[in-house]
Structures are given as C-alpha cells and as structure tokens.
C-alpha cells in the first residue's frame, strides 16, 4: 500500500460525498431529533460542491486539493458544520502543503492539525457530544496504529470514530443545538459525530481501494 496521494484524496472526497448523499435523510433525521433537521442537507450540499470543485481543479498538490475542499465547504455549507468541516480541510491543507503524497506519519500529523483546528474553531472538548467525540479518538487511534501502515491506521481510526459516536450517545450535549435540549438529548446519536464517522470510513475505504 502506497502513501496517501492525490488520487486517494479524490477518492476520499468522492466516496464521502456519495455516502453523504445516500445517507442524507438519515443524518437529517438525527438532526431532527436534537437540532434543526438540516445536517444531511448541509453536508450533501457542501460535499457535492466540493467534489465538483476538485474535478474542475484537475491535477494539484495535496494542500491545494484540501484547500479547495475547505474553501468550498465554507462558502456553501453554512451552519455549524460549514466552518467546522471547512476548517478541518483547511488545516489538512496547511499541514500537507505542496506535497503530492503524504506518508502515514504525515497524514497523521495533518489529521492532528485538523482536529486542533476544529477544536479551536468550535471550542468543543471531549464529552461535549459533538463531532469532536468521533474525531478525537479517530486521530488518536490513527497515531497509535500508524506503525502498522496507513491501511491499518485508517481502519483503526474509523473504528474509533464509530466507537466514539456510540459512546457519547447516552450523554447530555454541551455544545451545538442539542445542548438546548438538556436531558432530552440523552440517547440520541449526535449528527456531526455520525458524519465524522462516515468521513473516516470513507477515508479508510478510499485508501483501501487503491
């Protein structure tokens, strides 16, 4: 299995866009229960635009690709997920820079930078019941498994994201709209943690498909 390159980045974004489109209703439904019923719509709109922009962009280094995705998300999504996922990709971009391919370690550092960006932007910490609770364990699992190579590291990350999402489902939310519900949010999965889980599954599968 090779490094993470432009083709992998394209497949990743494209796979994620497909799955968001397929699961648009499910994500919106989760957001109905604890929020404003738009998360699936927002993510679908943003990533279908990002995929189209990437296609327009053609060949480019990883940083430029990630920046294109991040800027597109910020300009098309709105809501909480626009700046958060936008920041995620902009930080990936800064970290990956002009590289055409990233090693497992470099990808891990970029994901870590992305996590930091999301936390700075949204000020959520662990157990606030947000996408951070899928993202943070995913990044840590990736780091822990990165010695085994990119495939296993991404598999571990995806699994950790899903586990994080499950883990926080019983909690009360402290950030995002679900926080308005108080105890009524208990037992409802977080929409953003769900889409972040799909993100890591898409990343895993995009790389594995190589």
């Amino acid at each position: 299995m090779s490094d993470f390159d432009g083709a992998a980045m394209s497949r990743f974004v494209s796979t994620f866009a497909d799955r968001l489109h397929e699961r648009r209703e499910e994500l919106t439904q989760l957001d109905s229960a604890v929020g404003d019923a738009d998360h699936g719509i927002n993510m679908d709109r943003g990533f279908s635009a990002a995929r189209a922009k990437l296609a327009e962009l053609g060949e480019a280094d990883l940083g430029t690709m990630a920046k294109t995705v991040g800027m597109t998300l910020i300009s098309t999504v709105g809501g909480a997920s626009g700046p958060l996922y936008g920041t995620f990709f902009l930080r990936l971009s800064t970290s990956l820079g002009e590289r055409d391919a990233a090693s497992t370690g470099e990808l891990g550092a970029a994901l870590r930078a992305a996590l930091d960006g999301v936390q700075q932007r949204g000020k959520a910490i662990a157990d606030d019941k947000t996408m951070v609770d899928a993202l943070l364990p995913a990044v840590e699992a990736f780091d822990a498994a990165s010695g085994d190579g990119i495939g296993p590291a991404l598999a571990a990350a995806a699994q950790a994201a899903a586990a994080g999402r499950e883990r926080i489902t019983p909690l009360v939310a402290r950030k995002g709209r679900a926080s308005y519900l108080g105890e009524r949010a208990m037992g409802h999965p977080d929409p953003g943690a769900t889409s972040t889980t799909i993100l890591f599954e898409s990343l895993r599968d995009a790389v594995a498909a190589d």
Partner: protein
Amino acid sequence: MKKLINSTDAVVDEALAGMVAAHGDLLRVIEPNVVVRADAPRQGKVGIISGGGSGHEPMHGGFVGMGMLDAACPGAVFTSPVPDQMLAATKAVDGGAGVLHIVKNYTGDVMNFELAAELAQAEGIEVTSVVIADDVAVKDSLYTAGRRGVGGTVLAEKIVGAAAEAGQDLAAVTALAQRVQDNVRSMGMALTSCTVPAAGKPTFELGEDEMEIGIGIHGEPGRERRKLAGADEITEALMGPILDDGGFGSGDDVLAFVNGMGGTPLIELYIVYNKVAAMCAERGIAIARNLVGSYITSLEMAGCSITLLKLDDEMTRLWDAPVHTPALRWGA
C-alpha cells in the same frame, strides 16, 4: 408537506426575488444572496448588518431599510449563511464608519460571522460584533453553546438601526446593541412543528393534546413537552422565567413583544398579549411600548414567543424614531 413553493431548492431564491419585486424602492439583492438597502453605502454612517438562516421571515430581510438594517444575509432554510455573504454585505454597506454585525447566538451563526469579520478586517473595514442571546429557555452557561438569540434580535435591530441612522459612531452603536442584549429576555413555545422544505416532513411530532415549551426558532424541540394548556397558562409559563431571569419589576418601563411563530393568527397573539399586559400590570411593570405580530418566525410553526426589553430613555426614543422597511414602518 403543504407549502406555497415551487421546489425545495428554489424557496430562498424565489422568495428573495419576490421581496425585490415588492420592495425595490427599499432594497436590492446582490450576489451571493445579500439583501442590501437601496441607498447603501451611506457615507459616514455605521453599517448595520445581520443574517441567519431563512425561514424566519420577515427577519432579517424584511428589516432592511431606512432606520434599521443596511443589509441582511439569508442562509439556506434554518442554516446560518456563509461568510462570503457577510463579507459581501459588509463591503456593500461600509460607508467608512465601520460595520456592526448583529449575530444571533447559534454556533453556526457565530462561527460564520467570525470568519467574515476576520476577512473584512483583513480588507481594512472596521467590524464589531454583538451576539444576541436572549432565550431564557436555555441555561446561561460558559460551558455550553449558551442561550439562543431570538425575539430580542428584532428589537436590537430596530433600536441600533435608529442610532446608526442618527449618526452614532461604531463604538456607540456597538455599546447600545450590547445594552439591548443585556436588558432583553425571551421565551417561546410551539403548538405544532414546522417542516423544513428540503427535509419534507415535520421536524418533530406532537400529539393533538401536547405542546413544546421552550422552543427556539429552528423547529428544534423545546426543553419540555407538556399537555396542551390555555393561553393564560401558556403565557404564565413563558413570562415566569422571563420576569425572573431579567429581574423585571415594579417601576420598570418595558417594551413587550408578542411574536407569532408563522402559523399562528393575530387573533391568538392578542389573547396572549392581553395576559402579558395583565401580568405586567400586577407587578407594577409599565409597558411603555409594544409589538404584536409575526416578526421572527419558524416557517409555518404554530406558537408564540414573548420578549420583554427593559427600556431606558434612549432606547425608547430610538424605538420611536422613523423606520421604513418592508416589515416595520412608522414615521415615514
């Protein structure tokens, strides 16, 4: 889903086109979906902009015009607008005296406005922001997303808009917006859910004998589901937390605002106002000004919200100042 729309994708664009068709004397729409006052920018006047998801009409586009907003940024339905919009709005209304962003306190709105403010400042425009967070249904806490911005936003936009129109500078209008925010409290309830067009079905289901107390304006469920009650009891349930939290009491002058959520007719709002007036009178609170109608809505949701603002002389004078927008108009 029963709505007067053509397609779920076209809702916002067609409604904006309709607004421009109806109110071309007051406003225009520029790319990327920004409602701008017809005569903006006005040299030397502080620009006042706001924005948020669509679905709350007339807020905010209906408040663009003389004496209120210089621009409004409508996002997708219930989705905060993107920074490109606030940046374009800021540039379009900047008359050299800086621009105030009035932001409702939702994570998405705050982050997107923040990004826009950073970009505008990078382009040399002075920008300040005031975040409105008046919904007492939500606990006020530093460790959470905090209170939502609801009905108080309408009052802030009117009062601050009048101050800017009168030539107050950026620091003064910013301080004034903050003063409105510090003195305003709101709470809302729903008899029915609304349906986000793109989602196609009601955000929540309510039984024929149930209501949600403590809802926001995005179809989000409230703090609590209760058995349906009469208008007086509902009014008490909303007024209690407002009065307590805001410390409203004898001798205060207030502006009382009874707002419909979109699907509730005016006759019912007056029944609620009747009780609000009685409760204020009992407590020695003088309703110096009032507003009754559907000004910050949640699509076709049935229900209402109540807002009380503790007035001082300046706020009262600015409330009375002429305003000419599609949704609020007097003295002009």
